[in-house]
Structures are given as C-alpha cells and as structure tokens.
C-alpha cells in the first residue's frame, strides 16, 4: 500500500507552528512523550509505548557454536521489524532505507556498546555459546521509532532469563525452568537512544519528534547514552550542518533524558518482579481492563486548558480586525457565495495588481470575522452597495439583486464579540473591486 502523502497545508501548518515554538501536542521542545512499559507473561517480552508509537520486544536464546574468530564470546543478534500494521507504507519483504538505517543504529547501540557481557554467555569455549536473539517489532508508527526500539530492546534484555547451565567436563546440562530458576543476563549498562529533530536549517531542535514532525524535519541527530554519561553511539542524518556547541548541548539534554528514562525502566522492572513473586496476574492480560470487550483509552494532552476562555477572549479583543471587508459576496450559483474574486489576471493592469492581492488576502482572513471596523482609507470609498452580486453562467447583462441588507455602523471603534445579526455578514467593498472585466 502507498503511504498517504503529507499535504502541503499540513506541512506549512506544522512548520509555522514550530516557528512560533509550538508543538501540536502541547509539549515543550525538550519534552518526551509518556513512556509506558508493560511486560508479557514470559520473561523477555515487553511492550514499550512512546506516546502512540508502540514497539514489542522479545528475547530468546539458543545454544550454537560460536563464531570462529571469537570462540569465547556469545552472540547477540538484533532484528528490528517494521510490521506492516505499523503504517500503511510498510510492505513485507521490502528493505526500505528506514529499516536498514534503524536496524544498523539499534545494532550499534546495543551490540557495539557492549552492554551485555558476552563472555558470560560462553558455555564451552569454542563449541557452545548462547546466542541471544532480540526481535523488535514496530506495531504502531507515530514517530521516533529508534528511541522506542532502543528502550524496548534494553528492557527486554534486562527482563530476560536464560536457562541455567552446568558443565561437567565435556557434558553440558541445560536445566529447564522447573528444575532451576533461569538466570538473568549480565548487563553492564543500559544505552538509550535519544533523537533530536532539526528545523529551520539547524537552528531549532526538538526532542522526540512525532510522525508529523518527522516528515517535515530537516535532519535528525541520534545520541545513544547510558546513565553514566557515556556516549555509545552518535549519528546525524539528513545532511544538515550542525555546530559543535549544538551537538554538545544535545548531549547534555540526552544525559538528562537518559537518566529519567533509566529510572523509569528500573521501576518498571522492579514492579514486574514484585508482581511475579507475589504470584499476581502479570502479562498482557493484565493490561486490558476487566469485563470490557472494547476499551478506549486516550492520553490527556499536555495542553493547558485552564484559562482557555479568558485567553481566547483576550486574543480576540486585542487582535486587529481586518481592514478590508467585503460587502458583496458574489453568488455564482444559488447556494454558493464567494467573497472576493480570486486572484485576477494581473497582466493587463500591473499597477493595481498589488493592491488587489493585498485586498484578496485580507478578504480571506475576514471570512470568519464577525467584527466591523471603520475602514481606514475611506478615500477610495464611495457609496457602498450592500447587495450581493449574482453571477450566472448565462452571461446576462441583467444582474439579479437580492434583498439589500442593512449596513451596520462602519465607525465602530471597538470590536465586539457578539453581534446582533448572526448569519448574514455584511461587508463593505471597495469601489474599485467592482471590475467589469467579468
């Protein structure tokens, strides 16, 4: 299936909002979305939700012969899969650039940072070692796959228990979970990726971009760090030029975020362990509320809505009312009306074209306005007609005039919110707009 393209107005909207330092979900530029970690019934299975992005991580192990050049080390194998349910554009079997890039990054973050002690995975040197396989499935794509996947990966690895093994001479006994408790992996540190999205040629950055922001960003910087402030991996993509102090600033922010997330992970792991020990219900079954077939959960948005009414009123009273108001909506066919005439052909008349366009823009912005204002350059104004002009396709000379409407006072100094006449809006139109070129 094809990915739905991002429309131009959506792109402009997001970029404009970012210029005004506003994010669509109300976050500040250094805020992360809510991270929720839940575990499955078996060890090594976890689901991480970063906002709406959801990643499932599953760890499994098996005994294999080791690599010839590393005979005493176990093997860690990471695989990130962009499940076709995550986004309409993800197809199975097609190696997209995103997939390759994300896989490589996760691999570098987890494997090259040596967060797992691979020496401890060795059972019989040169013959049998544990191969730990980490499968990450992206279930829902709402931006920032890499961070969510790195959190899911490290949590799954911390949660996993491998079977206990004992070696007597050449004999290797693998104990089943019933015989001996499984053993956790030995993990040195927890590297976590933090992504920064850059906008406006690298001058403005955001932490944890969501899907819309990712689509319009200029470039991406990913820093993987652990809580001891050691950088495990750093990657910049998108071809933007970053200054040295920007990168340093990002790394400081990363340190703070990683500390928070690591704490969250520790708490989640402890909780799960406690629940399991006490024999309570655990696993995905617990995450679904009881006695309900369908459940709708919505995270409350971080937008502060306390004083919305007062703020809105303030904004409306302070805002400048439009200086151009159209009195005559032009009716092309019954039931439709048009305010302004669209951008007209400016070839014939170059002088007036600028004023026309300015008038057009204001006309569009006043479409929703419900204030009237004294028009500033009244010099151009002569008597204003209030009747709508009906343009029909029949090219008749006669123009049908509907009921003339009353003109509200033009010299209202203050703007008011409420208006007596609600539906009919009367706009005064400048004389020169009445072109007979139609």
């Amino acid at each position, binding site marked *: 299936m094809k990915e739905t393209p991002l429309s131009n107005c959506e792109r402009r909207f997001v970029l404009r909002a970012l210029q005004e330092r506003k994010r669509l979900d109300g976050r500040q530029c250094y805020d992360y979305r809510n991270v929720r970690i839940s575990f499955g019934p078996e060890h090594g299975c976890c689901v991480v939700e970063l906002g709406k992005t959801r990643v499932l991580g599953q760890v499994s192990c098996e005994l294999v012969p080791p690599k010839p050049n590393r005979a005493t080390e176990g093997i860690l194998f990471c695989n990130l899969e962009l*499940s076709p349910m995550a986004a309409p554009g993800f197809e199975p079997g097609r190696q997209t650039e995103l997939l390759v890039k994300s896989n490589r990054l996760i691999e570098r973050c987890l494997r090259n940072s040596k967060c797992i002690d691979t020496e401890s995975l060795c059972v019989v040197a040169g013959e049998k070692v544990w191969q730990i396989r980490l*499968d990450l499935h992206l279930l*829902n794509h*709402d931006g920032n796959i890499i961070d969510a996947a790195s959190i899911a990966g490290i949590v799954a690895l911390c949660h996993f228990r491998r079977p206990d093994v004992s070696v007597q001479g050449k004999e290797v006994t693998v104990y089943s979970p019933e015989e001996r408790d499984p053993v956790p992996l030995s993990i040195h540190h927890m590297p976590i990726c933090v992504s920064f999205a850059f906008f406006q040629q690298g001058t403005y950055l955001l932490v944890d971009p969501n899907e819309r922001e990712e689509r319009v960003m200029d470039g991406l910087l990913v820093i993987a760090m652990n809580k001891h402030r050691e950088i495990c991996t750093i990657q910049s993509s998108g071809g933007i030029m970053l200054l040295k102090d920007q990168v340093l600033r990002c790394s400081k922010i990363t340190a703070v975020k990683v500390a928070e997330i690591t704490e969250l992970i520790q708490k989640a792991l402890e909780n799960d362990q406690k629940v399991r020990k006490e024999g309570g219900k655990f*696993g995905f079954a617990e995450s679904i509320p009881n006695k309900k*077939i*369908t459940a709708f959960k919505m995270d409350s948005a971080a937008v502060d809505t306390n004083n919305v009414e007062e703020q809105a009123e303030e904004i409306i009273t302070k805002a400048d009312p439009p200086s151009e108001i159209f009195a005559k909506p032009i009716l092309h066919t019954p039931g439709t009306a048009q305010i302004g005439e669209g951008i007209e052909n400016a070839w014939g008349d170059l002088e007036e074209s600028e004023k026309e366009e300015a008038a057009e823009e204001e006309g569009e912005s006043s479409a929703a306005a419900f204030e009237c204002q004294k028009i500033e350059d009244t010099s151009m104004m002569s008597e204003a007609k209030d009747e709508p002009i009906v343009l029909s396709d029949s090219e008749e000379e006669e123009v049908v005039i509907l009921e003339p409407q009353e003109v509200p006072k033009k010299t209202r100094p203050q703007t008011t919110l409420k208006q007596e006449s609600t539906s009919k809006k009367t706009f005064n139109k400048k004389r020169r707009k009445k072109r007979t070129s139609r």
Partner: protein
Amino acid sequence: AVMEAAGCSLRPFSCEQGLLSRPDGSAAFVQGDTSVLAGLYGPAEVKGSRESPDGATVEVLLRPKIGLPGVAERSREQFLRRTFEAVLLGALHPRPSITVPPQLLACCLNAACMGLLDAGLPLSSLFCGVTCALDAQGDIVLDPTA
C-alpha cells in the same frame, strides 16, 4: 464420545479494540496467556498483479514474535485469507497484519474478526475460532494450552 464438562470450558478471554492509531482497525485478543494483536488496513487500492476479478482480495501477513516467518506462518496466512474472503463483501482490499506471540490459530481468527469490526469493513457474518484437540483416548478437549 462423551464431552466432559471441564473440557467444554474455555479460558477467560478478553479483547481490546482501537489500540493502534495508524491502522484503520486494530484489535488485541487475549485467551488465557495467548495474545494476538491484529491491525487492518482497508479498503485500499490493489496492485495490478494481485487483482482478482471476483471481488475481494485480502492480504494476510502473520508475524511470529520470535524469529522470522516460516512455512507454518504461510499456511496459517492462507487459512485466514480464505476465511476472510468468504466473509467480506464487495470488492475491497483489506490488509490484515497479525503479530502472534504463540501461534494459536483460533486466537488469530478471533483477533482478526474484532479487527475487521473495528475497521468497519462490511462483513456478511461474524466468525470465531475455537481450538479442539483430540487426546490419546479420543476425548475432545477444547481450548488447550500450549
């Protein structure tokens, strides 16, 4: 064969719809310790090569939690696909995609049905799945655990 009362009971199951924001329909179905997550896209345009003249084309993608999909997954995908094609009305092209922790086919069917409902695709009927096992004595056991 006599069906024992204990064997007739199913494990407690539950379902949640609308978990995922991107797919048109999604559902998670949990039966005991088995859970299946299904996400659906549709109706959508069909690629030329896959177009079928007699109506609905359904593409099912089954992913096990551990490892890469293999032959068992393919056979289950075919099974699910035939079920959907029998039930879906009209010329549509939904794309169910199912992630399966342990591979229990009945659970997949139930999750897929709830997913189809959540996506709002027209169905001629609802369907569900129950696993039956025959043990050594020839007794039927419903909804066995792994």
